[in-house]
């Protein structure tokens, strides 16, 4: 399983770094609330396809990086990402065989859970945010999911990561 682990990990790491870059690229003001959660989508895909290598631990570390990049409370994204990756890993076999619509519905639910966790932590910490803006990324994330799927599948097949 861990044969050539270093080689196999590199392309995945590159996609994750790319998703982090997409999270900080400046967008026009009207578009900012609709920025899809690139990191969450990428991690969901890799957790679904390679749950042994990309599981809760890596999600937690990447969540910490995201916390620093976005200036949120340290541990907020780490907790939320860790939890949704846990859910994904739990159901990864089911999700792999889901037809497209059903998978999209699942992704919608997972992204909603993710946003809810972030929203809830903000609420507990007393950070003042508009509640409505939170559901934009869930919608755009679900819409953009098929493209993320195609791109990441391309990456996976190109480097023969298929299991």
């Amino acid at each position, binding site marked *: 399983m861990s044969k050539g682990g270093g080689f196999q990990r590199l392309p995945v790491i590159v996609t994750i770094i790319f998703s982090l870059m997409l999270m900080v690229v400046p*967008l026009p003001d009207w578009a900012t609330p609709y920025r899809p959660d690139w990191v969450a989508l990428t991690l969901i895909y890799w957790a679904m396809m390679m749950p042994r290598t990309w599981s809760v631990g890596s999600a937690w570390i990447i969540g910490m990086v995201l916390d620093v990049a976005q200036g949120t409370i340290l541990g907020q994204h780490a907790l939320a990402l860790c939890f949704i990756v846990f859910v994904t890993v739990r159901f990864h076999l089911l999700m792999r065989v889901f037809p497209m619509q059903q998978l999209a519905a699942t992704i919608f639910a997972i992204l909603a859970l993710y946003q809810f966790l972030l929203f809830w932590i903000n609420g507990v910490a007393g*950070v003042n945010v508009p509640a409505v803006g939170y559901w934009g990324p869930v919608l755009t994330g679900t819409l953009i999911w098929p493209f993320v799927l195609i791109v990441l599948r391309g990456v996976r097949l190109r480097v023969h990561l298929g299991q």
Partner: protein
Amino acid sequence: MVNSRANSSNPARIPALGIRVLLLMAMSILLMVLDHRQNHLDAVRRAIGAAVYPIQVVVDAPFRLWEWLGEGVSDRDELQLELSRLQAERLLTHARLQRLTALEAENARLRDLLEARAQVRDEIRVAEIMAVDANPYRHNIVIDIGSREGAYDGQAIVDAAGVIGQIIETGLTTSQAMLISDPSHSLPVEVNRNGLRTIASGTGEFGRLVLPFVTNNADIQPGDLLVTSGLGGAFPSGYPVAVVETVNRIPQEPFADVTAVPAAALEQVREIMLIWGSSSDVENNEEPSDE
């Protein structure tokens, strides 16, 4: 052997997943408590920030390149026009500066007479806003100066027209700053005309601040310039913050409804200035309230 059999019979099983996720979540909660209540984790943040820095630089690079190219290809007429404009501006500024020097000397003399503590001039350094979006739900910016250059939490940031915000987190080479328009940001101001002290809070819109604690009978009117009063300790006094736009006195309410337009163009600036307030107590600067 046993291992491989277990794997093939039940590939869905990931060992100890539940325990791991519980541990990690407990750790996150612990981190959040430590980070939110006492700022114990600055070193951790700084370490991770060093890893984030290359990402920010790569994202920022195309914007910088675009700007640089734009400067390279702007034509001669345009440059000449800008040159003459800048020269005129310089002349004006110089003229004003001459008066300022005289006024400063006079001020120092008067302060001497009053035996007040001498007000040392603030030290200023130019920084740039990086083309990187921080938290989408707050008005935060990332600037290219960090603790290595001496930036500190709570430090005031201004541009040529007025106050922009303050630093809330310093990394080694970059810092996050909160704009005065953020809904959780407030700063002590005074009306330049008569010295009326009050608080200006952000609203979440770039072009609007509110003054929630102005009494109905207070002497304030549209067009009044608000400057920092220096009372909070974080901002040095005397920098323009905003211009009062509307004053709506409601007879039943204790406070009037006052809005103001920030003096600085919060969403347009790229070059900003950091102030090392020598007169204010650096140790005593306050965190922006999160409530």
